């Protein structure tokens, strides 16, 4: 499977190169692989692309962290009784369909165009899918496990932590995958709209800026970097976590 993917990627790259070198497209709008790679290497060497990437990743991590904490708190609150359950349910119904980027004008009005505005948008795009998945995980926890837990003397928060959490791990992980993808998207679009935040602008701003300079190869270099980071997180990071937990425990694909 992995090898097949690699072959397809190579084929697509070859196709790209063939089109770029065919002479029918202008290298100004459709740069060759060599130009893109050169732009990638030179902008990494110059330090700007990397520092913009780090800037973006730090914001994402911050948003993910806050979003996760909020999701956990709300999930626990929703378990405390029917009233709270319906409250959290209502919140999700209202907020989940709202794309983060649609909130932009309001957020600019409230928080300005600073860093905190981007973090806010990321928290919004992380919180709801994560919360939905955590709650689904709790609901899918077999009664058998909680019976066993109560039988051996677990109650309250301990029951929650030792039984419900590990039992909903498959849901948590897929929630994080969705959250990661959404936050990444929200971040790039927010950075493009906001422009340079606090002197830096992040990856989104970098891509936008390269267009102004008509540096097409540079734009693609940044896109390539975004893809590479995505693959790294998806295939390496999440894959590794799944291998060490739910796949090892026979809990994957339920």
């Amino acid at each position, binding site marked *: 499977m992995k090898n097949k993917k690699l072959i397809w990627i190579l084929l697509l790259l070859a196709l790209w190169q063939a089109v770029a070198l065919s002479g029918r497209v202008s290298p100004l709008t459709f740069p060759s692989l060599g130009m893109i790679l050169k732009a990638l290497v030179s902008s990494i060497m110059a330090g700007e692309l990397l520092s913009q990437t780090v800037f973006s990743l730090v914001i994402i991590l911050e948003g993910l962290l806050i979003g996760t904490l909020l999701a956990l708190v709300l999930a626990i609150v929703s378990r405390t009784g029917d009233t709270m359950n319906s409250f959290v349910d209502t919140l999700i119904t209202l907020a989940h369909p709202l794309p983060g980027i649609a909130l932009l004008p309001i957020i600019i009005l409230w928080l300005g165009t600073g860093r905190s505005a981007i973090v806010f948008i990321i928290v919004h795009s992380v919180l709801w899918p994560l919360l939905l998945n955590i709650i689904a995980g709790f609901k899918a926890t077999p009664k*058998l*496990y909680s019976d066993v837990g*109560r*039988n051996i003397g677990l109650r309250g928060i301990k029951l929650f932590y030792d039984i419900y959490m*590990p039992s909903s791990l498959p849901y948590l992980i897929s929630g994080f995958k969705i959250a990661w993808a959404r936050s990444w998207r929200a971040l790039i679009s927010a950075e493009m709209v906001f422009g340079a935040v606090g002197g830096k602008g992040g990856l989104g701003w970098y891509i936008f800026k390269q267009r102004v300079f008509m540096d097409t190869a540079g734009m693609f270099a940044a896109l390539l970097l975004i893809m590479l980071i995505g693959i790294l997180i998806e295939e390496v990071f999440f894959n590794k976590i799944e291998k060490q*937990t739910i796949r090892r425990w026979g809990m994957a694909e339920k």
Partner: protein
Amino acid sequence: MIELKEVNKSFKRDQDTLKVLENISFTVEKGEILCILGASGSGKSTLLRLMGGFDFCDSGSISIGSEAVVSPSPDSILIFQDFNQLLPWKTVLQNVIYPMKVNKKYGSEQQRRDRAMEYLEMVQLADFYNAYPHQLSGGMKQRAAIARALALEPSILLMDEPFGSLDALTRQSLQELLLQIWKRAGVTIIFVTHDIQEAIILADRIIVMDNKPGRIKDIVQNSFDRPRDISGGDYLELYHRLYSMLSV
């Protein structure tokens, strides 16, 4: 030591009220094996859950010693029919150690570990201590669940058709194993089953349940010497007696 007095239980489904248990009274002596024998729908699993404190009865009382049963307790462990009662994210050994740890039993982690290994040896699972539950067969999982329960040294084991989903050979070997362990541990066992033969092999007394609503039809003394070879004529007589009670 366990006493049930006029226990009633019904479930509400939409508008209907379904009476599951009616006027159940009996006592269980310390150290005996009591089988509750009944067809499906006789409320025998519900009865066991009530005794374990997992559900509440509508009226009547259930007490262990002199204390009323109000919630599940590590002193009476329920073993389910479902093979998935082990926690899948823990190895077999961790599954056995964990309840002891929660109850802060037996001092150090090393002592708990030694103890867990002892019980895993008792159920012939010592070689699989490092396996995860999904790597075990159904019979092995049930053995591990028994080891987990016994390691806590509960005074009561509540068993809800624990061997019901196993093949005949595995079931027989687990029945023998249970009897060996029971002799050694001196635990009181309440064993729910629909299998007449199983009840004859295991029980000191057999409570025969009537269907819909679940009522006690009869309590039959079973004083054959152990080990019991159920091919003999006397056993057959008991078998037919129980069979005719169940099928009316």
